[in-house]
């Protein structure tokens, strides 16, 4: 069935400026249903989100059930739950995907444990808003699209702010990644109920779901589910042009609602709340089943891994266990990236756990990442065409290179959200994002570091 027959109306939504068209590389896993993998041991860090780390409340040798609270949240933080049933092996400093090392609770999995009971609250859809919100807070849900900001904080609107539209992000514009695509295909109703629920909580009258047109099958499935569920308000499923960074908040909001978020501002300022599809499902499960955020669905992919797949793993599963489960590494693997190839973060080691915010694992070989040393800017203007914000990364890089990072404000240093479009197209292969990061750091410290700081590749 075509999207047109499915009743998905209107033209392709698009953001107006810049962006790049990327090789998608999604074919390896787009048709692969999500499967579950449970390792022998999980390492659950206490810090998995923006905000203060949680406090451990379990001890060594203690038996814990899947779903049990094992670390309580500090104010503005998020609690942490046991993602598996088993025995606490230790609470200790462990390797961390973003913080190098951080305290974590290590649990040995009991392979014979029965699946824990789950409570279904039949009245979930009519609960008062603050009960819904409390359940989302207690579930430890953070934004699963990347930023990992505690979701209940995003839903607790500041006084006087009115939000009329929930935008659900099903764009998944990073190449290689397909986990959101699979979630939309496999659990369309949960996605929709989650989005509807978010709208209830913040009092929004409209729900729109943006799906890139390379995943039109997901849009068709969602549209069919909209008709079956008859939610009110009924979510609108809208197709977006496949173009990076369609899934960035600013570009998605512009494409779907025509509203422009102010510089360095938030969607709230134009009456919009943006959530990712995986977060919506988690919120639905938290409100209806009071189930905490325990698993992460992620795409394990790239030319460096034996068997690419979409996996559901308990939070705390080590990357090395996933590698073993997925057929091992190609000998030429040179980079392991948590997330996608544009904005993902390189991992220096494989003994780090998957955390709530891990969007995917991408394994690239030497030939995929081979780079020449970067050269001088040749003023080709490719970066200016590509920047979706109309910034001047060329100038920021030139000034920063010359030790004049503090003079780059007018080129948009602070506005840059580091999407990487500019560096992707730069023929001189200048590490433009890194120059911008150096300039931002210079603003923070007020000193023109950057003089003598040469961006480049580090070997872990």
């Amino acid at each position, binding site marked *: 069935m075509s999207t047109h027959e499915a009743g998905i109306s209107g033209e392709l939504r698009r953001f107006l*400026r810049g962006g790049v068209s990327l090789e998608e590389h999604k074919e390896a896993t787009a048709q692969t249903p999500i499967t579950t993998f449970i390792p022998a041991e999980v390492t659950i860090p206490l810090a998995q989100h923006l905000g203060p780390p949680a406090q451990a409340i379990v001890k060594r040798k203690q038996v814990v059930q899947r779903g049990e609270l094992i670390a309580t949240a500090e104010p503005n933080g998020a609690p942490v739950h046991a993602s598996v049933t088993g025995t606490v092996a230790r609470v200790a400093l462990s390797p961390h995907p973003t913080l190098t090392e951080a305290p974590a609770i290590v649990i040995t999995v009991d392979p014979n444990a029965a699946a824990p009971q789950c409570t279904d609250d039949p009245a979930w859809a009519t609960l008062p808003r603050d009960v819904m919100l409390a359940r989302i807070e207690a579930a430890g849900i953070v934004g699963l699209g990347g930023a990992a900001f505690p979701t209940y904080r995003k839903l607790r609107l500041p006084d006087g702010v009115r939000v009329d539209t929930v935008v659900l992000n099903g764009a998944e514009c990073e190449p290689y990644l397909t986990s959101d695509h699979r979630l939309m295909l496999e659990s369309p109703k949960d996605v929709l109920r989650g989005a509807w629920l978010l709208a209830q909580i913040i009092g929004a009258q409209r729900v729109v779901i943006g799906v890139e047109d390379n995943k039109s099958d997901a849009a068709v499935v969602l549209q069919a589910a909209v008709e079956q569920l008859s939610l009110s308000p009924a979510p609108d499923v809208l197709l977006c042009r496949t173009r990076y960074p369609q899934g960035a908040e600013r570009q998605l909001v512009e494409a779907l609602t025509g509203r*422009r978020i102010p*510089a360095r501002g938030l969607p709230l300022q134009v009456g919009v709340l943006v959530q990712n599809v995986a977060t919506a499902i988690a919120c639905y499960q938290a409100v209806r089943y009071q189930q905490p955020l325990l698993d992460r669905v992620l795409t394990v992919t790239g030319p460096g891994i034996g068997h690419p797949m979409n996996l559901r793993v308990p939070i705390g599963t080590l990357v090395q266990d996933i590698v073993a489960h997925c057929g091992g590494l190609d000998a030429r693997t040179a980079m392991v990236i948590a997330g996608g190839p544009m*904005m993902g973060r390189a991992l220096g080691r494989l003994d780090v756990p998957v955390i709530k915010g891990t969007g995917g694992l991408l394994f690239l070989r030497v030939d995929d990442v081979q780079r020449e040393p970067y*050269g*001088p800017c040749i003023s080709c203007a490719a970066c*200016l065409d590509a920047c979706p914000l*109309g910034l001047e990364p060329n100038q920021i890089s030139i000034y920063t290179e010359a030790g004049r990072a503090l003079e780059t404000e007018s080129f948009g240093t602070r506005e840059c959200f580091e999407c990487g479009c500019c*560096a992707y197209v730069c023929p001189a292969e200048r590490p433009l994002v890194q120059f911008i990061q150096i300039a931002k750091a210079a603003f923070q410290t007020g000193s023109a570091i950057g003089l003598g700081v040469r961006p480049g590749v580090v070997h872990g």
Partner: protein
Amino acid sequence: MAETPGLRLAPGPHVHAGQTTRAIMWWVTLSLLPAYLWATYLFGVRVLGLTASGVVGAYLGEWLVNRLRQQRQTLRDGSAVLTGVLLVGTLSPGLPLWMPAIGGFMGIVFAKMLFGGLGYNIFNPALVARAFLMACFPLAMTTTWLAPRPGVWWAADAVTTASPLTVLKLEGVARAAELLGLGPAYYGQLLLGFRAGSIGEVSVVLVALGAAVLLRRRILSVYIPLSVLVGTGLVALASDVPLFHLLTGGLWFGAFYMATDYVTAPLLPRAQIIFGLGIGALTGIIRIWGGYPEGICYAILLWNAVTPALNQWFRPKRVAPEAIGV
């Protein structure tokens, strides 16, 4: 397993579009092949000798400055070779073989390397090289046009002639029309390239073909070259032979290959259109009212000097509105 040795920690993006500086330089160089082979067919293998000479001079200049400054050699980026090749495109085919080498060397050393190398120069090095040769060897530069002798690869007795624009300048419109036989047949020959002229410019069709390849690969955009042609065309309306002006001289070569040099041209389309119109108009003005038969070289160099100002005036427009309160 502890640290996994050899895993790279470069920051994102971890993928690249693949179009590199070096690839761009080589594509531009290669796209000139049809035009230069055509010139070889018309004027003999000395065209290839001149090209080699220009490249060697440019290459040596860059190598020497890097060497003296004890910095990393930059020859791999291909830009020196391109400068040498482009310079020869602006020269008459009858020049002594050693002359492009001098030009290439001086252009690279003074217009590029002393400014800090690729990306830092203000003036197009190939055109500075040409201007330098013009100043040093004015006679050779203006009297060594060869009459086309298709298929004569090796001629000891090359026949010099005047370029069409020189005829126009020296003899005036009426006499030039008589001498050259201005008419559809002649314009057809100009288009295809059976005529005297500089090496890169003789065939408008082949210059356009090379440019089309670059347009397709998105190395070139049309704003500058089209506005150069429009600018010259508009001014040429003031002469009696606008079509003649559009099809002769280095106009097409200059519009597509010289004015478009990234480093010395403005960044944004609006600025590029002004830049192109300015070059085109100035070219026409020099040709019609100035002292030289051809003006594109100086027109481009002059507008190169305006580029930094144009880049200041025309900046990208921010997408996000300025924050108000909240």
